């Protein structure tokens, strides 16, 4: 199960589900627009593991992560006419909204200074969540994209990769990263600028994949 390219000349790889991971993504969107509840179930099956991965990775709370996914799926279902229109793809939209919603919750939680924030800093809890539920093999649709992104991340120098991971996958701000790494704020900004700049280049070949 792999993504396909929109551009002519690239071989479209088929998907057993014929879902958002294949060129039939437009078909799924059309069915969602037609309020096909089976299409909703397909979307949930295929996209949720990834959305949950983003939310759970930042929040370190499976229940809250599921709430985020439910929110995002609800928005997608209710606004599907707008989502994925004008050439923008459905899956990147879901990913972006999930990440934004998760960061909103994370920062609200930090403002409240809740006990969960403290818990998230406990590496034991992080390990527990990851050990129990992470998919560690290419069993999920979209794994190919995951590998491509990982390859791009792995190509970064370690200091940039660390900064990017804290910023992008843990939702920390500049100042929080500086504090976490005990480095000057300017250094954080420089590392992120360089790191994201490289990622733009290395991820450019897959940016038009249709999921």
């Amino acid at each position: 199960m792999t993504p396909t390219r929109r551009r002519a000349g690239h071989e479209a790889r088929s998907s057993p589900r014929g879902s958002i991971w294949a060129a039939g993504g437009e078909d799924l969107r059309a069915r969602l627009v037609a309020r096909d509840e089976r299409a909703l179930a397909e979307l949930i099956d295929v996209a949720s593991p990834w959305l949950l991965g983003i939310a759970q990775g930042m929040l370190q709370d499976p229940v809250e992560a599921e709430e985020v996914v439910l929110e995002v799926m609800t928005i997608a279902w209710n606004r599907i006419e707008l989502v994925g229109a004008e050439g923008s793809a459905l899956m990147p939209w879901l990913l972006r909204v999930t990440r934004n919603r998760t960061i909103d919750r994370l920062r609200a939680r930090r403002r409240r200074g809740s006990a969960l924030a403290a818990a998230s800093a406990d590496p034991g809890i992080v390990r527990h969540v990851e050990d129990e539920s992470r998919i560690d093999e290419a069993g999920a649709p979209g794994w190919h994209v995951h590998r491509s992104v990982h390859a791009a991340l792995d190509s970064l120098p370690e200091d940039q990769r660390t900064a990017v991971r804290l910023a992008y996958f843990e939702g920390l701000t500049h100042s929080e990263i500086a504090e976490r790494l005990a480095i000057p704020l300017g250094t954080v900004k420089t590392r992120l600028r360089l790191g994201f700049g490289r990622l733009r280049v290395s991820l450019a070949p897959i940016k038009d994949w249709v999921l």
Partner: protein
Amino acid sequence: MSAHDWFVEHRMDYVARTLEESELRTFQDHLARCPECAGEVASIERDLAWLPMGAAPVALRPGLSRRLAEGVLETRGRRWMRRAMPAAMAASLLLGAAGWLAGRLETERLARELQERDRRLAALTDTVSITRGADRVLQASIDMDGREGGILIFDDSATHRWNVVIHGLPPAPAGQVYRFWFICEEKMVPGAEVSAGANPALFTLPMPPEGGKVMGAALTVESLATPPMEPRGRTLAELML
């Protein structure tokens, strides 16, 4: 470095959401006014569209797919309810307020009516108590223009009051009025103007504070022009204790 340079420099940070909250709001305000930055931000978002998939996927707990689907569909129903609920609540409040107002007005009307009835009942009870406690009852017939009526006086010496009942009186002639008098030792003291409209006419009178001892009572027909100081008209009835 111009002000715009700061936004150019932080476009990537905006997409990555690494800006502090205040910086984020500033950037959002700027984006709404700057097509160049908005275009470049959209371009960065496209380039990094798949970057979130760097996070490893998580296996869904058993039944989660179904619960999510149910949640989405249920939320849709709740959303409709949320949209309809304010209107329904507003209508309910309006109806409730109108109902409350109408209810309150009706309650006030009923309260006033009840108060009036209580007052009448109390008066009637008082009147009846005089009638029941009367030591003496005086009675006389009245002949007014060939029409026969009567007058009854219940004398309650304990409360020094009289219940007077007059019945069978025709309407008073034009320009005239029926008057009830106390016959006292020293003079005639006006008691009450009798309404012939109420048949029988019933009224309660305390003993007059002037004129000395009450000896009896009289009913006369007086001119409306005559001040009610002393009887000058025709006497219809006279009762002596």
